């Protein structure tokens, strides 16, 4: 009834090619933005921010990054954790070396540095394809984690080998360090998430995104119709790593505050982000958000039901969580390989016709 495109006339090409061509979608999007920016910051407390909102926003950025590489360009990467570590350590080095520069610039620069590292590890993708590449990206994962663990320069020769985020402010309000208010950290991450999602959305529907998708669908055919595989693959690695690096920087600076690299950015993190992308939907920006929300909420819900409601021991619930996540991955691949995003699309198609079946 409400979800209609009838009567929504477009009078210019700009209006026709906007991100949300249907009015209802557009208003829903504005409503989500308004609630996110103007409502949630006033009602949240520390628990909500640390348990749900910060991980959701940060993982969304990482998932968007991986989705660009895997979902749009078809290059499977298992090195996300390693690239997040690059973002975190780059941010840490920048924060401690140039304390007077704004943290926002540091986070973006950390993304830029990660993009450079990503291109470096993306170079073999020109020769190596498929599984071989997936396994080759593990080289990045293990090497980078080892590097940050063993070379003292990266953690400023601190005795514990950890890195700790010093306090930095935006407009006089601390956004990193122990004094940070919940709403400030939330807003800082939200701004960056919206920024990243906007960029990703517009890149993927433009020329660059089409090149990536051509490479994904068949790289030789893409080459024949004039897509330069070198540029397409490396740009996908660069853009993807930029997002992943920003996510890593936020994960360290705003969310955790103190990081031990093997624990925070190990191979399980790579898999976690990959699962978000699969469950959410390969090749969909909305899917990245949906997947991140799903896998952030799942442990919280499981803990609520298992530990608090049923009174089961924590380790048992943790194991159950492994089983459920594994089973869900397989189930999604069998039933709906395009993930939550596809379910959403189908639901929208149904809504257009509702309540009439034809």
């Amino acid at each position: 009834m409400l979800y209609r495109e009838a009567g929504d006339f477009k009078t210019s090409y700009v209006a026709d090619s906007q991100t949300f061509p249907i009015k209802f979608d557009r208003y829903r999007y504005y409503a989500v933005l308004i609630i996110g920016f103007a409502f949630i910051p006033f009602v949240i407390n520390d628990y909500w921010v640390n348990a749900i909102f910060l991980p959701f926003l940060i993982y969304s950025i990482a998932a968007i990054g991986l989705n660009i590489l895997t979902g749009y360009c078809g290059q499977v990467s298992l090195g996300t954790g390693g690239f997040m570590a690059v973002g975190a350590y780059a941010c840490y080095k920048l924060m401690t070396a140039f304390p007077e520069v704004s943290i926002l610039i540091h986070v973006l620069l950390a993304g830029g540095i990660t993009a450079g590292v990503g291109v470096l590890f993306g170079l073999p993708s020109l020769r190596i394809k498929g599984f071989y590449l997936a396994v080759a990206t593990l080289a990045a994962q293990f090497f980078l984690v080892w590097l940050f663990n063993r070379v003292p320069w990266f953690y400023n020769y601190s005795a514990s080998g950890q890195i700790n985020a010093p306090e930095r402010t935006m407009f006089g309000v601390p956004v990193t360090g122990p004094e940070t208010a919940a709403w400030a950290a939330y807003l800082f991450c939200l701004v960056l998430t919206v920024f990243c999602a906007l960029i990703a959305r517009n890149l993927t529907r433009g020329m660059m995104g089409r090149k990536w998708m051509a490479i994904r669908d068949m790289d030789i055919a893409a080459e024949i119709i004039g897509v330069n595989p070198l540029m397409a693959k490396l740009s996908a690695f660069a853009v993807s790593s930029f997002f992943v690096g920003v996510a890593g920087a936020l994960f360290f600076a705003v969310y955790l505050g103190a990081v031990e690299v093997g624990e925070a950015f190990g191979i399980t993190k790579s898999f976690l982000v990959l699962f978000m992308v699969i469950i959410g939907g390969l090749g969909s920006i909305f899917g990245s958000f949906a997947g991140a929300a799903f896998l952030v909420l799942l442990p919280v819900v499981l803990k609520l039901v298992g530990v608090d409601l049923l009174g089961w021991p924590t380790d048992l619930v943790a194991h159950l969580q492994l089983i459920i996540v594994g089973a869900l991955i397989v189930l999604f691949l069998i039933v709906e390989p395009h993930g939550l995003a596809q379910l959403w699309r189908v639901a929208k198609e149904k809504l257009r016709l509702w309540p009439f079946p034809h």
Partner: protein
Amino acid sequence: MPEQLIWGMEVFFNGLMAGVLYALVALGFVLIFKASGIFNYAQGVMALFAALTLVGIMEGQVPFAHLINAIFGTEIHHFGWHVPGLLAILLTMVVMIALAWAVNQFIFRHLVNQEPIILFMATIGLAYFLEGVGDIMWGSDIKKLDVGLPQGINGPIDELTYNIFNYGFFIDNLDLVATLVAALLVIALVIFAQYSKQGRAMRAVADDHQAALSVGISLNFIWVMVWSLAGFVALVAGIMWGTKSGVQFSLSLIALKALPVLMLGGFTSIPGAIVGGLIIGVGEKLFEFAVGPMVGGATENWFAYVLALLFLVFRPQGLFGEKIIERV
């Protein structure tokens, strides 16, 4: 002879032994990949699961005791009997065959004709699932596995090398046994694949699914068989690694060690898995010995991957892999 060189030789031999164990895991990957085109990330978890089941059966643990206790408030843990090693291994094999059947029936039958990368991700899901099931079934504490394999320093080699170099090499008996078992396993597999009816059917399936179907080979049967074989290899690997360092979560990480072995040797070649395993084993031990102390150690974590990565840039299909031909 200078001391460094003698130590280097000892490291070399120990690297060979470690390489054999890597090759053992890699073998499981190659078997499944050849026959069904599935790159089975869960192979390491299968080894862990097999070892956990073996220990659980030997000790007479009640499966899912933890879960049952949590739901019904009971306090059960053990049946109170001990199963002898050989019988326990046979029972574990039955469990692994049942697992192979279930995996084929519930997962991969539904994923026929999907892209390889989707299948790969499904095995990652399977790995998580199996890890959770193993933990809930048998508990997640570190367990000791002892099926009566010899362990400790090998006396004769120690004496012999002491007489020659004036320095006794430390070679573990278990590693020698593992080498022997791996060699026997490979020979048995090659004979099976070359001369038995099922083995030929397996190779036919590996060559071309549709052609194999058209001459009356049951794909389902072959896949269950291949997964069972991989389960068997996983069991052997699980016994070796479990005896060496205890049955615990880190056992499943040997899959990550086997991946560069596969890249180096080629995904489709059994000899490749062996040679790749030896190269990686020796390479990483020597690198750690020679360069490790200069850069802070623990280079074993990444050396294999970087070596394989550099190697692949020059030969994308690995040492013995089939040449990759691309058609439009």
